[in-house]
């Protein structure tokens, strides 16, 4: 398998050598830099797009099987060309811009949504030395850049001039901002153990044992938080189809809608890769080359996402917020504290007998916190009628006087 492993770096080297020999010396330096840069960008941009196609196919087939159906199987052998057909269809659809939308914001929103997601793939390590940039704050970069999506969703919802879209946008802001916090603090546990934010070094640290064994609680928190961030079921309130039609992208059609969809699945792919990198020792693995191992892990995690989506009903917005602030946030703080203590006590690496201890501690904490979390605390709001109601609605916010 060595030749397979070496294939892509060697191809790059050969291409670079060919360029060097073909070009005159005077312009050689910057042209090679430009061409190789563009080439890497092409790969980085197209990788998620191709990956998303595979994921959409996989999700539909898996959902079909979970629901005792077959799933799409008419286009091509076993229906593998279905995503291609979908892509062609969505690109040839008329791009409708409804009356009364804020045109500039409406048109920019899909771009703002997709760009950060594509940038995220620049720092994910696909193998020992195959990545675009070896950023020393890689994981921080990923979280920071994908947080921009909140704004894109709000832009889309606000500019659509549609009440359902507005509902979706408002939910998005509340939900996505809330879940950033447990997400980051869960990552902190990994960073405390490995002592680095460089994704490649985090993977290198897991060459013997994956970090999920030392961070079971952190993994659970991260997984739940990321489900909410990517608005996967049971946290798919932003586009809860039974409540608010399609949420923030209700008014979008054609390729703009396609870009939202693409961004959503690309984010799913990217974050699955992040989970694999942080907790499942990334591209490390026996036998296969690194990038294939990463893909195997990404699709495994994606399968779990599909599984939960096929099973669980949706939570309500106040329950989702309660879960973030009352359950995940305290748990993530506890997780960081426990991890920090462990790292201080065992300075030269965590001993292996900590693995069952960690799992027991994690399960115990979840059980205790779960008991404290009362989802059913929601009571019916008393709605006054008549003039009282008008007064109640037009209340000043912030306690000031007019």
């Amino acid at each position, binding site marked *: 398998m060595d030749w397979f492993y070496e294939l892509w770096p060697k191809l790059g080297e050969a291409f670079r050598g060919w360029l060097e020999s073909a070009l005159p010396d005077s312009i050689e330096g910057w042209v090679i830099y430009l061409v190789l840069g563009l080439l890497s960008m092409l790969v980085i941009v197209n990788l998620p797009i191709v990956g998303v196609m595979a994921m959409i196919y996989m999700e539909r087939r*898996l959902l*079909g*099987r*979970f629901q*005792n159906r*077959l799933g799409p199987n008419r286009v091509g052998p076993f229906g593998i060309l279905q995503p291609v057909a979908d892509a062609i269809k969505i690109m040839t659809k008329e791009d409708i811009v409804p009356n009364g939308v804020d045109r500039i914001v409406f048109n920019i929103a899909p771009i703002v949504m997709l760009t950060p997601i594509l940038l995220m793939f620049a720092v994910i390590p696909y193998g020992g030395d195959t990545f675009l940039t070896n950023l020393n704050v890689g994981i921080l970069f990923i979280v920071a850049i994908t947080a921009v999506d909140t704004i894109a969703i709000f832009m889309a919802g606000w500019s659509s001039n549609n009440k359902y879209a507005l509902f979706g946008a408002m939910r998005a802001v509340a939900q996505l901002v809330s879940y950033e916090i447990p997400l980051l603090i869960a990552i902190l546990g990994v960073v405390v153990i490995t002592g680095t934010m460089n994704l490649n070094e985090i993977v290198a640290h897991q060459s013997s044992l994956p970090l999920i064994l030392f961070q079971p609680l952190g993994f659970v928190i991260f997984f739940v938080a990321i489900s909410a961030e990517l608005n996967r079921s049971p946290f798919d309130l932003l586009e809860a189809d039974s409540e608010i039609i399609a949420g923030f992208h209700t008014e979008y059609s054609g390729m703009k809608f396609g870009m939202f969809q693409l961004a959503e699945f690309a984010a799913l792919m990217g974050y699955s890769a992040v989970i694999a990198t942080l907790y499942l020792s990334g591209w490390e693995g026996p036998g296969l080359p690194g990038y294939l191992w990463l893909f195997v892990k990404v699709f495994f995690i994606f399968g779990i996402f599909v599984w939960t989506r*096929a*099973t*669980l009903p949706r939570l309500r917005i106040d329950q989702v917020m309660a879960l973030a602030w009352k359950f995940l946030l305290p748990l993530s703080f506890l997780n960081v504290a426990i991890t920090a203590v462990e790292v201080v006590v065992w300075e030269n690496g965590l001993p292996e007998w900590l693995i069952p201890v960690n799992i027991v501690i994690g399960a115990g904490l979840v059980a205790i916190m*779960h008991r404290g979390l009362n989802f059913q605390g929601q009571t019916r709001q008393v709605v006054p009628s008549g003039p009282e109601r008008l007064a109640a609605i037009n209340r000043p916010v912030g306690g000031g006087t007019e």
Partner: protein
Amino acid sequence: MIGVIKGLATTIKTMLRSPVTVQYPDKHLPMADRFMGFPGLLWDVKIDESKCVGCKVCARYCPTDCMYVSIKDNEKYAEGKSHRKKMVDDFVLDISRCIVCGICVEVCNFDAIVMTQIHEIGNTGRRGLWADMDTLHAMGKEYEEEHGPAYPENQAVGEEETAQ
């Protein structure tokens, strides 16, 4: 937590079962014997004429008025070949209005109409689903070829009448 895990276990168990989907245009589920498609008229092979005498009882009982029937004298009765005094002159069934309730079959006194199993009918024209008498007879013939005589218990009675 336990309930959620139970649910997840249920879905994964279902996933391992084989799917229940039947690939419809490639494979057809077996139809029940009584499956009702659109109605067709039966043909009396022995006398080589329609079993329908055009009495219009089906048209009168049809809840959606989808049938148009006219009646004439039967020439073969005059020649003594048939026991049917009257004969259907024209019979048009608007399949797009038919609701496949089976009432026409129930009320027919001459066992001349039958619910065939033809149900995959499509057309692009507005009048394309008006089945004329020939089409209806063809539908009835197709049904009898596949399923045998439509009213085997009444077969003997008809022959007796013809003999008289």
